[in-house]
């Protein structure tokens, strides 16, 4: 039924605001005076990650490390050992390149380093598969001591930037390349380790992070026209995961759909599945990139082609619902 709506579905590209990366760069400038101990490390990609704003505002606390991410990552661990709080900034794929440095020199010694990665997922668009990181949440989530955060919109990025700065320990945070829709109200308050219910519902829970939160809200709107009441959760902290909220969702709605601009292996879907399998098993559908690489194209085109739109999430919700009814 929902498949038939594809043709007439409204274009939900929405009002384009700041990208998440821009919001991050501006947040660093805002926070600079209040938090004199943080510094920003860059690997020749400041314009791409948004930290060019900080470079301009606080050149004394900006360190250019050149195109050498492995050195930058391990160096950040040493820099943190002298009392500073380094933000390591680059593209998500290059964080994978420095994954082992993040493991031994940041996560293992619990260094107070904040790794902030732009250009995650198919949201990268025209740069194609080499830059579209679909594995970072899985990889960084697997590192002990590492918190993993993926905010949904510019407002949440700004709040999360301050929250991870206040958290004593290593953090991996995703921003995003493309202009992002505002999905959170002005009174929204980010809390590390907590998911947030953005819309109440009875029949199914849609759990999303990053750019997929806006699409999950689209899906809930579509589902309501079909008489299906969907709860929408913004799970911007993937680790440590909000177990209580997820258990509550599974018990209240009986089935769960996850949505992420990431591989369905090991990211948000994996994290939710691991949690529910232990505490509250329920039928689940995972919306995400299905174990393939991306390609060049506009983000919305790619979301269509790879099954990440609100419609896809709504269809997954119908599948989850039918499994709930059978069980």
């Amino acid at each position, binding site marked *: 039924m929902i498949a038939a709506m594809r043709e007439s579905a409204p274009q939900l590209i929405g009002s384009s605001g700041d990208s998440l990366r821009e919001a991050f760069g501006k947040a660093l400038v805002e926070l600079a005076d209040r938090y004199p101990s943080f*510094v920003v490390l860059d690997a020749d990609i400041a314009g791409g990650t948004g930290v060019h704003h900080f470079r301009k505002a606080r050149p004394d606390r900006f*360190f250019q*490390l*050149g195109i*050498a991410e*492995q*050195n*930058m*990552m*391990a*160096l*950040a*661990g*040493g*820099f*943190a*050992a*002298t*009392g*500073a709080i*380094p933000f390591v900034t680059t593209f998500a794929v290059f964080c994978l390149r420095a994954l*082992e*440095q993040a493991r*031994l*020199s940041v996560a*293992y*010694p*619990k260094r107070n380093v904040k790794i902030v990665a732009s250009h995650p997922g198919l949201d990268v668009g025209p740069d194609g598969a080499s830059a579209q990181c679909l594995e970072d949440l899985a990889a960084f989530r697997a590192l002990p001591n590492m918190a993993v955060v993926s905010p949904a919109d510019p407002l949440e990025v700004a709040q999360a930037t301050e929250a991870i700065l206040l958290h004593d320990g290593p953090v991996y945070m995703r921003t995003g390349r493309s202009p992002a829709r505002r999905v959170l109200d002005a009174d929204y308050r980010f809390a590390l380790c907590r998911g947030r219910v953005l819309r109440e519902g009875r029949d199914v829970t849609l759990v999303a992070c990053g750019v997929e939160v806006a699409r999950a809200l689209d899906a809930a709107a579509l589902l309501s026209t079909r008489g299906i009441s969907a709860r929408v959760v913004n799970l911007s902290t993937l680790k440590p995961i909000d177990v209580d909220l997820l258990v509550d969702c599974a018990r209240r709605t009986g089935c769960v759909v996850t949505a992420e601009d990431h591989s369905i292996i090991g990211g948000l879907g994996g994290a939710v599945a691991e949690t529910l399998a232990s505490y509250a098993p329920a039928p689940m559908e995972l919306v995400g990139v299905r174990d393939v690489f991306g390609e060049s194209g506009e983000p919305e085109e790619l979301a269509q082609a790879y099954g990440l739109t609100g419609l896809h999430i709504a269809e997954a919700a119908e599948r989850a619902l039918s499994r709930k009814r059978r069980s």
Partner: protein
Amino acid sequence: MRAKALGALETTEMTEPSSETITARAIRIGALLSIHSAGSGHPGGSLSCADLLAFIAANELKWGEADATSPDRNRFVLSKGHACPALYAAAAQAGLIPRRQLLSLRKRGSPLQGHPNVLDLPWVETSTGSLGQGFSAAIGMAMGLRHRGSRARVYVMLGDGELQEGEVWEGAMCAAHYRLDNLCAVVDYNKMQSDDLNANIMGLEPLQAKWTAFGWNSVELDGHDPKAIAEAFDAARACRGRPSVLIAHTKKGRGVSYMEGMPLWHGSVRLSDEDLRTALADLGASETFVASYFSGTLWR
């Protein structure tokens, strides 16, 4: 250092915790005892760097002094983390850990992990064991210290095989770019790595020319000659505007007749009782000392 009289060891070097007694011979003996006790560990590269470590621990660090945890302390990172038996032995000499603890190397629950972990032993400064990373972390420390206006210095020891890691040359460019004259790298150039000679695995020469071309103040020296070592560290301390690298020519397995120059003793190996007895005899340990180790009464 190696000329000390037989039998003197257990009464001086191995008993009084003070920076005056951090000798290369005591480091070698401590490293071999711990590796024997563990049943595994890397003796070759522990022995080759012992003279350098003895100098650094006794002269460049404030180990054993009150300000060992000061934010402005000099720091030492063992980037070739597999040589930690030597580092632990030096620390035991300085009184940072009880000597008896050396015999817990690599055992469950021991702070003496198979590779150094800073959460277990704060004075190792950063966790190492994956080659190249300790070097980058040391550069980060040097940058961080400068950023906070500290005059403290950072020393980092690399293995020669480690120089095959691309990360090392990323770091070499970076330290020169930032003119980190508070950083001194030491290359334990024993010419051998896990499987074979460096030259047969992946040649490093011309090594000094490489560092010089990367913008470093580079000094070649005999890494077993205390006078040459002291002079090289003086030269590094005096250099302004550039990081320094001391390319120390050493011998793998130095001090133990059957290990010297044998790549076999690089890897994590089991030392038999007989191996250890021969090694300790080569290093001039007294029979009483050796007997006390084997009877389990040493450092009780």
